[in-house]
């Protein structure tokens, strides 16, 4: 009986969507980074912009904006896969993220699963009183979906954050902490659309719910609670 319910649910969902398939070249998705519509093999998309995280008050004692230069990209591979990634820096914090996404489209919608690996390097030794460096590795399994409206495309990503290594150094002391720890997760909502003539823009927010935000790595957070904080981003497709 349970199996029957599941099958019927799937059919009710899938059949109506399948009846309105759209050719991908009418969807404008070849300009977009966040969409999960499969990208033609050999084709790349790159955006450059900024991200602004509002660090949570329990951690920083006042909601503190943490800006960062933000670059994102996607490169199409065969078999409906693509490499995706991100790089960013605000001098104190630098990160690079690369992953693999497999996706499929049904009409105006598309879905995908992926996994990425992030390396973060933090160095704030030049600020008086913060004589500290940190190296961090984390893995982000992801499920994502996208829908193309006539005038814009909206995408959503749900990622878990699994921190595999965190090494902290202050002055002459180095400690390795927090290995293999599920830190939390995030939900990203992005809207991508044309802006002015042929310029395309992506903007959105990542709603983070984690224990140890990388943007505040130098604060030696000891809370075990997960905290909610938004990360706004905007990028122009190049």
């Amino acid at each position: 009986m349970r199996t029957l319910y599941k099958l019927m649910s799937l059919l009710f969902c899938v059949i109506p969507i399948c009846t309105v398939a759209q050719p991908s070249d009418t969807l404008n998705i070849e300009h977009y980074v966040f969409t999960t519509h499969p990208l033609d093999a050999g084709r790349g998309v790159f955006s450059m912009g900024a991200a602004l995280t509002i660090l949570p008050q329990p951690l920083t004692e006042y909601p503190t904006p943490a800006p960062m230069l933000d670059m994102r990209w996607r490169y199409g591979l065969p078999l409906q896969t693509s490499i995706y990634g991100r790089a960013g820096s605000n001098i104190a914090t630098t990160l690079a993220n690369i992953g693999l996404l497999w996706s499929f489209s049904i009409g105006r919608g598309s879905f995908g699963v992926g996994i990425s690996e992030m390396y973060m390097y933090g160095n704030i030794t030049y600020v008086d009183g913060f004589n500290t460096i940190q190296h961090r590795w984390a893995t982000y399994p992801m499920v994502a979906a996208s829908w193309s409206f006539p005038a814009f495309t909206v995408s959503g990503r749900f990622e878990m954050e699994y921190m595999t290594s965190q090494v902290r150094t202050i002055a002459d002391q180095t400690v390795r902490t927090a290995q293999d720890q599920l830190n939390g997760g995030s939900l990203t909502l992005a809207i991508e659309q044309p802006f002015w003539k042929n310029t395309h823009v992506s903007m959105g927010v990542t709603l983070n719910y984690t224990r140890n935000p990388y943007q505040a790595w130098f604060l030696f957070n000891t809370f075990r609670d997960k905290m909610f904080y938004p990360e706004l981003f905007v990028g122009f497709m190049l």
Partner: protein
Amino acid sequence: MKRILLMIALCIISNVAAKAAGDTTAVVRHVQQSALEISISGGPQRTFFRDVTTPLTDQRQFWGLSATGKIMWHPDHILSVGVLTGYTLFSTESFTKDDIPVLNEPFQLTLEAVPLQLALSMQSGGFEINVGLGGYFLSSTFTGGNAVRQANTIFEIGVSAQASYMFSIDDAFSIGPEVNVHLLSNRGILAVAPCLRAKWEFLRY
């Protein structure tokens, strides 16, 4: 029963989505011209405080008023960008000498703000959604029984959102209802204002 309801919900959602997908075959609906717009709106406002405003009462909701003004650049697509400002009165309270024995004089307290935000707007038909990102110049004023005034102003991070539907009066001028929301989450202030909005496209090119 839960599974049946879930199935029905999924059915409805998927059919709505499918219908939306089939609504148009247009690639992108291009607005032919870019425009500069100015709009103003105003109305009464209800403010909700997460915590009590003073230790003297349990009150957390107040009436005030809200007025906003935006200058927007609307390029040849549906996204506009601009600047938002205005004025919002969050709360006003009055206390007698007996309410505050330690001060031994009557007081009136006011909390108001001037927003200054980057505005991002998207239109669909007559509907318009705007988000303001930035902050507020938050100001509190103490007016004592002997008319001494003490005002303090700080800049506080906050966001706002407006949803409106505009009726065209002519090619350049439109008017319509708007719901305006201010959120200063760190201060625990949420304000909602039903407003009337007027918009004027003063330059097209």
